C-alpha cells in the first residue's frame, strides 16, 4: 500500500495495514498470557513459616513473627481451614495476604493444614478431626507458644470443627472464637443448592463413599461451581480476558485460580457425616450430634464469639450461620455481615479494607494479657 493509499484508507475510516498487524499481534500476546494464566501456577502462600508438628497428613505451621516480641499480642491466634481445600487462600500472595496482615499487627500466628487424605483415611470423620487431631495440634501449639489462652479462627468446615471443639472443650484455654462462613444450621432445607441437592432422596452419600472411599476433589469442586455455573464456568474467564492487559488484576486472578485448581479429596467418613447428620438431620443445632459419644452442646461454648457472614454466599447461605448467635453460651458475641461471597470476603479486593480490619480490631480488643 502506498502512502497515498494509506492516507485515503484512514480518511475513509478504514484501519491501516500497520494498525491491523499491531492489533493482531496484541491479540496473540493476550491469548498467550491468557493461556499461561490458565495452565501455570502463581507463587502463593509465600509468607515464611515453619512446620512445628505433624500427625498423619496434618501439619501445624508457625509463621515467623515480624514484630518485636515486646510488641506482640499476648494471646496467639490459631487458624483452622476447611478439610476439602488447601489453606493457602489465607496467605494468597505477597501484599494481599490475611496472614501477612495479622503478622504486621503483632499476632503470633499458627495454621493447621489438614493435608490431603489418602485411601487409608477414608473412614476419618469429624470425631477424628475435632477430638483427635485438633486437640493434639492445640496441645503442641500451646507448649510452643507458652500461652495458656488462645484465639481460634475457623473458616467454612474449619469453622464447623472449631465450633464443635469450642463446645466440647470449653475449658481448654480458648478465649476468642472467630467463625467465617460457618455452615452450622441446616433447618432451612431450601436455602442454597447444596442443601437442596443433598436433601433430595435420590442423593445418597453412603453409596458415594461406599463406592469411592474418599470423595474426589473434582466432584466437590464441580458441585461448588455448579451452584453458580455461568459465573464459574464462563464469567470468571471472560473477566480475565477483559482485564488481560491490567497486570494487577491478572496477578490477582492468577493467584486465586492457582488456589482454586489445587483441589483435594474429602475424607469419606466426614463427607457421610456432613451430608447425613448435618445437612439432612441438622443434628448440631438440634443438640443431638455426638462425637466420640459426647453430645455437642452449643450452650457450653463460652468463648467470645465473632461470627462473620458473607451476604452473597451461595455455598454457606447466611441463614446457616446466623442462628448460632442465639444458641451459644458466649456472653460476648458479635455478628458481622460483609458484602461478598464465600471466598471473596477474605480474599477479594475489598477484604483488606473491610473484613480484615474489623476482624483485627475485634480480636485486638480481646487479645490482651
Amino acid at each position, binding site marked *: 500500500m502506498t502512502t497515498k493509499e494509506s492516507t485515503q484508507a484512514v480518511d475513509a475510516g478504514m*484501519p491501516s495495514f500497520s*494498525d*491491523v498487524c499491531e*492489533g*493482531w499481534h*496484541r*491479540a496473540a500476546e493476550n491469548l498467550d498470557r491468557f493461556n499461561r494464566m490458565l495452565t501455570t501456577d502463581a507463587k502463593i502462600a509465600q509468607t515464611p513459616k515453619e512446620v512445628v508438628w505433624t*500427625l*498423619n497428613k496434618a501439619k501445624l505451621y508457625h509463621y515467623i513473627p515480624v514484630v518485636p516480641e515486646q510488641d506482640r499480642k499476648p494471646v496467639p491466634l490459631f487458624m483452622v481451614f476447611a478439610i476439602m481445600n488447601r489453606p493457602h487462600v489465607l496467605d494468597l500472595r505477597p501484599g494481599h495476604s490475611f496472614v501477612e496482615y495479622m503478622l504486621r499487627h503483632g499476632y503470633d500466628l499458627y495454621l493447621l493444614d489438614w493435608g490431603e487424605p*489418602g*485411601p*487409608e*483415611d477414608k473412614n476419618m470423620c469429624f470425631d477424628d478431626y475435632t477430638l*483427635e487431631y485438633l486437640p*493434639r495440634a492445640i*496441645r*503442641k501449639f500451646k*507448649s510452643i507458644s507458652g500461652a495458656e489462652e488462645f484465639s481460634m479462627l475457623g473458616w467454612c468446615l474449619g469453622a464447623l470443627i472449631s465450633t464443635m471443639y469450642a463446645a466440647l472443650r470449653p475449658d481448654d484455654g480458648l478465649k476468642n472464637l472467630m467463625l467465617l462462613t460457618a455452615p452450622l444450621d441446616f433447618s432451612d432445607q431450601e436455602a442454597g*443448592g447444596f442443601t*437442596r*441437592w443433598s*436433601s*433430595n*432422596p*435420590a*442423593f*445418597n452419600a453412603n*453409596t*458415594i463413599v461406599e*463406592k*469411592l472411599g474418599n470423595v474426589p476433589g473434582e466432584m466437590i469442586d464441580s458441585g461448588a461451581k*455448579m*451452584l*453458580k*455455573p*455461568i*459465573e464459574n464456568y*464462563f*464469567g470468571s474467564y*471472560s473477566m480475565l*480476558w*477483559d482485564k488481560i492487559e491490567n497486570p494487577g488484576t491478572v496477578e490477582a486472578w492468577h493467584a486465586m485460580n492457582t488456589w482454586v485448581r489445587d483441589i483435594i479429596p474429602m475424607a469419606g467418613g466426614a463427607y457421610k457425616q456432613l451430608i447425613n447428620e448435618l445437612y439432612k438431620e441438622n443434628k448440631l443445632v438440634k443438640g443431638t450430634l455426638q462425637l466420640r459419644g459426647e453430645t455437642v452442646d452449643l450452650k457450653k461454648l463460652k468463648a467470645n464469639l465473632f461470627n462473620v457472614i458473607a451476604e452473597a454466599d*451461595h455455598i454457606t447461605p447466611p441463614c446457616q450461620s446466623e442462628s448460632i448467635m442465639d444458641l451459644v453460651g458466649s456472653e460476648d458475641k458479635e455478628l458481622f455481615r460483609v458484602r461478598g461471597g464465600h471466598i471473596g470476603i477474605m480474599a477479594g479486593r475489598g477484604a483488606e479494607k473491610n473484613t480484615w480490619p474489623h476482624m483485627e480490631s475485634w480480636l485486638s480488643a480481646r487479645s490482651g494479657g
Partner: protein
Amino acid sequence: MSQSKDNQTFDPFDPTGMLKQMRDSNMESWSKIMTDFVNTEAYAESTGAMLDAWLTTSGPFRKAMESSMAQAMAQLNMPTRDDITRLAERLTNIEMRLDDLDARLSEGASSNDTQATN
C-alpha cells in the same frame, strides 16, 4: 449515540468483540436462569439419579479391576493396595501414641525444670 452505534459494528482487532457484546447483554439473565435451574427439585433429582447410575454401572468394572490386580500382586508376592492401606492406618495409630508420649515427656521435662529451679 454514535458510541452505541460503534459498539454494534464488528471490530477486526478484537476477535472476541462479538462474544463480549453477547455476554454483556445476556450474562445476567443467563446467570439467573441457570442459578434458578440448578436450585430446582428436578435438577437435584436428575443429578442424584445420574450419579447413582454412574456409581452403579462403574462399580462392577472397578471391582473386577481391583480383584484382578490383587490376584496379580499376590502372584508376584507384592503387597496390594489394601495391604498398604492397612499398614498406613496402623502407622497413623502409632504416630498418635508417639505424639501422646512426646507430650507427656515434654510435660515431665518442664515440671522437672520447675522443681529444679525451686
